[in-house]
């Protein structure tokens, strides 16, 4: 069970330090700025303390327990030292310790992470067990033991805090190193004989650097808090002016029982809070920058549940296309600018027809699909266009209508069926859940069983979990799910990509068979032109967000008008017309390419 060493697997680990664009208006940006401002204020106070404060931080400059006055802005403490000066000079201690402890903690943590993540095996096990051990480490004794050897000074404090906090960055960064290590470039470098140190410094280090930066801020944050706690408990150096020691003396001099607390307890307490919150905001901003998932971005909030919506079925006398799209545009807005992903796309899918949508990766196919389902995710935004389903105008704002249509009139067989199933639930439950939209629970269960049988999954496996199935089988489950409510239109987005060739053919056959059986329309989306050409009645060629060519399959493949279509066709030699998809592999896969 070593695959799940929970302690060594920090749950806050952020696996993707790719700096992808981030939606505008994410909290990190604002928080980061706020954090930087707060810290700058403290930093200015700390650096210019001798200029700002009118009195030294230590040594009496007034009577004990003076109330605030023009002379002593925050009054004086129990021996007549100026509290305002102590507040400013205290910032120096907190910030210095934060900086040094973070350097030590992240330095050690990073070294351990790199060593463990790089060498794996026994070294890793030992290192990570030591990391585990630090959680159960008698921290308080360590404080006293180290203080005995080195005295109660800044060095000891930094050492103690470093010794306590290093395991956290070690844990987080190790999982990152492990991932980075599996990266193609790193593997390639290794294959070409790069040495360990070189791989670590040239390849692994840069990949974990953003996360290490985030950890640095986090550790600094913890260090500020720890230093203050130690000082408060009386385990720090009471002769060193810091926020913690000011609070220590305030607490031991019963400040909460006297009138002195508003200027003796509140300011250092708030200063500590500001420092920690400033670091936390900054740390969050860095983490979000390192891992844009955290940005969250603006995700439309939907209100009504779909099941209450009137059905969008075709009227009895309706003879038009199942789906009609007019001038649909979708754009992505990020902090790096705006990109038009779908640009005034128009097309229609007739009843019972199979329409193929072909384009290379990044052409906007999937954006189009999600837009059709009303599932455009931020930072994407539908900016223009009309969608008609069975003649009903879905409009881009009428999300509730779309929701009524999803799973009923329009169903999706998504890209990467490998991940389209929730790993936590048995498959039959996931199919039944879909079927429940239009029927009660027992009926839905029956329907689910029926559908799973139909796509070729034997009854005894219905209660199994997704991970227990192969990719092809999972795709069958996904198809069963899509069919749950007899949709009028099936959107199949790269339905067989990633499957082995034999399975591809089987799934395609199943899909087409079922289309006929249920009389559905099919929008088949793929980068694989031959595959689409074999199945589709009509074809749409998409390039850079626009549909550059549309027409019957024979026409598009036979006499392409657009240069891009020709280019696509040339990339797939041997495609000269529709071929019947059979149980055997298509001929093109046997040709050398």
């Amino acid at each position, binding site marked *: 069970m070593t695959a799940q060493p929970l302690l060594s697997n920090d749950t806050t680990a952020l696996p993707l330090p790719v700096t992808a664009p981030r939606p505008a208006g994410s909290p990190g940006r604002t928080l980061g700025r706020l954090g930087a401002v707060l810290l700058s204020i403290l930093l200015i106070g700390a650096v210019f303390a001798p200029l700002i404060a009118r009195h030294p931080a230590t040594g009496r400059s007034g009577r004990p327990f003076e109330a605030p006055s023009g002379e002593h802005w925050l009054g004086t403490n129990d021996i007549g030292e100026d509290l305002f000066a102590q507040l400013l000079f205290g910032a120096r201690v907190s910030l210095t310790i934060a900086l040094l402890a973070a350097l030590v903690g992240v330095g050690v943590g990073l070294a351990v992470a790199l060593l463990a993540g790089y060498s794996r095996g026994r070294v890793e096990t030992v290192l990570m067990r030591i990391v585990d051990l630090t959680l159960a480490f008698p921290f308080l004794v360590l404080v006293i033991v180290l203080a005995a050897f080195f005295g109660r000074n800044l060095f000891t404090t930094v050492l103690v805090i470093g010794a306590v906090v290093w395991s956290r960055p070690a844990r987080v960064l190790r999982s990152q190193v492990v991932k980075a290590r599996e990266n193609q470039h790193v593997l390639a470098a290794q294959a070409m004989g790069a040495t360990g140190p070189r791989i670590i410094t040239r390849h692994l280090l840069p990949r974990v650097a953003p996360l290490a930066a985030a950890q640095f801020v986090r550790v600094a944050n913890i260090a500020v808090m720890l230093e203050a706690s130690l000082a408060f408990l009386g385990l720090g150096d009471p002769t060193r002016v810091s926020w913690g020691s000011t609070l*220590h003396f305030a607490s031991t001099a019963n400040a909460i029982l006297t009138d002195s607390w508003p200027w003796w307890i509140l300011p250092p307490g708030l200063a500590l809070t500001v420092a920690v919150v400033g670091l936390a905001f900054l740390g969050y901003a860095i983490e979000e920058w390192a891992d844009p998932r955290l940005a969250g971005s603006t995700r439309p*909030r939907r209100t009504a549940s779909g099941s209450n919506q009137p059905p969008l079925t075709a009227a009895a006398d309706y003879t038009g296309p199942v789906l009609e799209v007019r001038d649909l545009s979708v754009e992505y807005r990020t902090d790096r600018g705006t990109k038009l992903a779908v640009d005034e796309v128009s097309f229609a899918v007739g009843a019972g027809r199979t329409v193929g949508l072909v384009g290379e990766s990044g052409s906007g196919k999937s954006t189009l699909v999600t837009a059709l389902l009303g599932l455009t995710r931020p930072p994407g935004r539908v900016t223009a266009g009309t969608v008609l389903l069975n003649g009903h105008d879905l409009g881009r704002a009428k999300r509730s209508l779309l929701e009524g249509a999803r799973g009923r009139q329009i169903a999706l067989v998504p890209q990467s069926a490998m991940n389209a199933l929730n790993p936590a639930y048995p498959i039959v439950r996931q199919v039944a859940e879909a079927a429940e939209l239009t029927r009660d629970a027992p009926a839905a269960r029956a329907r689910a069983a029926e559908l799973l049988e139909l796509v070729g999954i034997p009854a005894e496996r219905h209660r199994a979990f997704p991970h227990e199935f192969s990719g092809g089988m999972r795709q069958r489950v996904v198809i069963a799910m899509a069919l749950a409510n007899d949709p009028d239109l099936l959107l199949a987005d790269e339905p067989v990509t990633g499957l082995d060739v034999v399975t591809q053919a089987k799934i395609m056959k199943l899909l087409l068979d079922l289309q006929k059986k249920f009389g559905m329309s099919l929008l088949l989306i793929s980068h694989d032109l031959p595959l689409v050409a074999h199945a589709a009645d009509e074809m749409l060629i998409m390039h850079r967000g626009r549909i550059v060519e549309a027409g019957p399959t024979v026409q598009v493949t036979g006499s392409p008008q657009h240069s891009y279509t020709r280019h696509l066709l040339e990339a797939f030699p041997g495609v000269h017309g529709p071929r019947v998809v059979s149980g055997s592999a298509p001929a093109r896969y046997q040709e050398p390419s």
Partner: protein
Amino acid sequence: MNQVRKPVLLLLPLLLAGLVLPGSAVAQSPEGKPLRVAINGFENNLTPFSVSFGSAPNTNDLIGLVYDTLFWSQVKEDPEPWLAESAEPNADMTEWTVTLRDGLEWQDGVPLTAADVAFTFEYYKKQAGASGRYAHHVSDVPLFQSATVVDEQTVKITYGAPAPQFKVMPGADLPILPKHIWESVTDPKTMSTGLPVGSGPYKLVEIVPDQLYRFEANEKYFKGKPTVDKLELPVVKDPSAAFSALRTGEVSSVAFNVPPELFDQFSKNPDLALAKSTRYQSTQVNFNARKAPLSDPKLRKAMSMATDKDALVETVLLGRGTPGLPTFLHPDSVWGTKDTKSDYDPEAAKKMLDDAGYTPGAGGIRVAPDGKPLSFSMLVNSFIPQDVRAGQLIAQQLAPLGVEFKVEALDPAALTARRRPAVMGDVPPYDAYITNLESHGHVDPDALYYFFHSPGPKGFGVGITGYTNPAFDKIAEAATTAPNDERKKLIAQLQETIATDAPSMALWYKDGDWAYRPADYDGWVADPGQGILTKRSFLPEYVKVARASRESGEDGGSAAGESTEDGGSNLLLPVVAILALVGVGIVVARRRRPAGADDDD
């Protein structure tokens, strides 16, 4: 899901608020209901062996509730008979015949006899390690030899040297143990002995470890039925918590000194009264007299002269104390001189160092004749803030003299360890430290012997300061066996020597201020040398006297009539702060709602 969750979340604070509502401040009356007094340390099962003297200074008083001594009050020159009816010495004072009162009983009904007394002396000797602070009663001074039972009521204590102070030490200090309980105990420091059985006015009936002691009155006590039936002593280690509990009425008194910063406020509080009785505490700097250049009395004396003890008292104690005297002993001690002249004279101190060859050096720090700069470390207990503050102030005061002190704060065990040489007899590594003496030291007729005699039969003197002065030793030895009048003269000579040699520099003697709620109980007896939580505060004859003297206004008690709006200003800010926070919360919550609803894009 949200609809379900919200009411639950709302309910939580309501539930908590429900707990708050019933009034928590329940006033205790002496009749029936227990009297609650906060103490600041848990002392296991309160036997003379179980207490740790490091944690709580009021353990003597607590033990005194359960156990009795032969005489009362070690602070007196001629203590009052307690368990003993009388104690008569032989001619050379090496043998004391103690006669016990009639009809004494242990709390479990077993008669208390001479056998118990004899056993007690022998047992403390046998368990010298565990008995800690009582060990010296049966070791060197006085030089205990044996205890013999003469008859039921009479016991004879024999010493190897004259013991003129028998009635005080050990008479008024050594708790008498019941033989029938302790004779089989070989591990007295463990709590295997269970609830203690003494002869005192209170029976310990319940111990909630680290939280509470519950006592019930011993109605058959030989001094009469105690005035309070039940005592509850909650352990409150944090002084702020204890004194705030006193203010709210959660406790009726606090068994430790009112901190200086609370004194004014408390004396104005109409619900509180203050009693004053010094416990002869002192705080001093001990120099390592065996380590050069601190071994030079002139250097030590110069530092003492350059230290402004008045300023220390004004600053650290806010005036609630007496500045330390060069003659070391507490000015109110029956044994000390009444000479209260300060030796503060920084200019003379400078001259003294100039003359002794301490020349100015780099950074304003003088250099000793042997070439070492006068740069020292001052060890302080980091958990006694007043000591830390004193250290800081002394360092500042001595800087102009050209002596540098770096204050080094240590936890108590580390501090003791630093003072202890690795091998007994070696010179310990410290330079100076600040330490505190509780009542015992200053009223003990042999105190100066213990602290400054060298080497001392068991190395006491060396252990405390390392001070060596053969002339001093000779007088000190003579003093231990001298009769009172002569002893006082000798002690005065010793004090003069201390004042000259300055092995230890007394910084201050704290006032003892004790606060209580007179509405709950007003029989408190403020005996010198004790706190107010002593058995005498509950014994009718003493309570009567105390009340009478308080009424005539002689006592330090000050149930002031001035009523001030205490806490009024305190209330405002936090309430405003909380309202503001709540307000912000509501605004955020409100904003979130419509914003979320509009966000339908």
